[in-house]
């Protein structure tokens, strides 16, 4: 009962009752519309005899058409709340789900995605993305991606700094870049970033939009050398992948520090060591 939300008005979000992919994001009491959803690109099928007949595969990402949403909007999200963390559990379909969480006192919202096993019954390759979109955000087709945690590199849609790009026939993959730890947009006043916990392909194809590829299962080889389709299985079904995206949004002057510290904390996490106790002891005894 009541609104499905996490966090507070300083940083938090509330889910739209009628459409679970729509949110209102609160940042310093400001209300910002946000759309977050899972979609998949159909993988191009081809015999690799000509350039336009190349199949999407391990080496190349060649989507066949626009991405297709894969979430069932009728499935109701579930809210879990307590003194340490607030969570929204969302199940998209049988093989895609997500937990959105905000820990008390944290300056980011965490999206823990779980994708797979991607079904193989229709033999159509699927390349699944998580897409974040803030409507009306003006970043002038410019975004920033990191370079192995060093400097942030400026990327402009359909533009190359070292030569004239006459025609970009691969409008999606031609704008994809490796995202090793973060991708950012800025409208000069605010900075909107998604940090990831592993290298992924990603882009900002429209203003206000960030997409990251989280999983792919493909049934054709792209003939660039591997000689196998990217179709890994375990326990007789496709692989399952689970990971995190961290959303941060705030004023430009503060966010760079927020992101740098967050990236260190999430990529170089504490190590966990367990010691079993055979006989239960009190703290005083153990001390």
């Amino acid at each position: 009962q009541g609104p499905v939300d996490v966090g507070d008005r300083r940083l938090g979000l509330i889910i739209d009752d009628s459409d679970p992919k729509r949110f209102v994001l609160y940042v310093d009491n400001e209300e910002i519309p946000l759309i977050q959803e899972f979609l998949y690109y159909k993988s191009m099928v081809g015999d690799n005899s000509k350039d336009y007949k190349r199949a999407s595969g391990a080496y190349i990402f060649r989507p066949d058409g626009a991405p297709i949403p894969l979430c069932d909007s009728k499935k109701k999200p579930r809210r879990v709340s307590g003194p340490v963390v607030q969570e929204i559990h969302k199940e998209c379909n049988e093989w895609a789900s997500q937990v959105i969480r905000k820990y008390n006192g944290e300056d980011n919202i965490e999206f823990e995605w779980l994708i797979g096993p991607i079904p193989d019954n229709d033999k159509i390759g699927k390349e699944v993305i998580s897409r974040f979109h803030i409507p009306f955000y003006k970043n002038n087709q410019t975004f920033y991606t990191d370079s192995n945690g060093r400097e942030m590199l400026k990327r402009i849609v359909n533009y190359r700094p070292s030569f004239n790009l006459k025609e970009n026939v691969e409008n999606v993959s031609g704008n994809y870049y490796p995202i090793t730890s973060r991708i950012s947009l800025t409208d000069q006043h605010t900075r909107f970033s998604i940090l990831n916990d592993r290298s992924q392909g990603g882009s900002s194809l429209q203003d206000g939009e960030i997409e990251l590829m989280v999983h792919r299962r493909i049934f054709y080889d792209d003939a660039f050398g591997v000689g196998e389709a990217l179709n890994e299985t375990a326990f007789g079904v496709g692989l399952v992948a689970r990971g995190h995206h961290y959303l941060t949004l705030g004023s430009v002057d503060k966010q760079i520090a927020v992101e740098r510290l967050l990236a260190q904390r999430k990529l170089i996490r504490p190590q966990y060591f367990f010691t079993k106790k055979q006989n239960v002891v009190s703290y005083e005894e153990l001390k």
Partner: protein
Amino acid sequence: EPKITVLRETMGVMQHHDAISGTEKQHVANDYARLLSEAIEECDDVSYTILSYLATGIETSGYTTCHLLNISQCEVSENNEQFVLTLYNPLSRPITEFVRLPIAAETAYYVVDPWGQNLTVQFVPLPDAVLRIPGRESSATTELVFQAEDLPPLGYKSYLITKQPSSLRTKRSAESET
């Protein structure tokens, strides 16, 4: 030194783009996983030894790790009435970590920090999709979540985690029903 070298060498092999981007044949992918798994295990031994030198005051033997925490599976937290969790912070500044440990059921747990303070804990049910992960062999349906504050730079903190004895749980539950 020889035990660390195995992971150094494996990381060298993993610099090849195949190990990152999935452009390797399946047998090679399996071999990469084998190499990494064996190398990490050797490094665990070294970590335990070093931590034993550092952690004077807590038990110096019997450390173990939970490499399957990424699928919310951990034999120690699921099956033991009591255990000590030691967190080592590899960064050069203090940090706060939110710890999530898979447990069998939502029941009373006490988490005590190094100063003997009882910490606030929360139980979060695992989403059904996690329980359905193929190959996951775990009795955990819930995660125990707590905040480990101010882990010292390049240092550690240990937390004593105790499940309330079942006899006490039954008594409390009967009382609450009454």
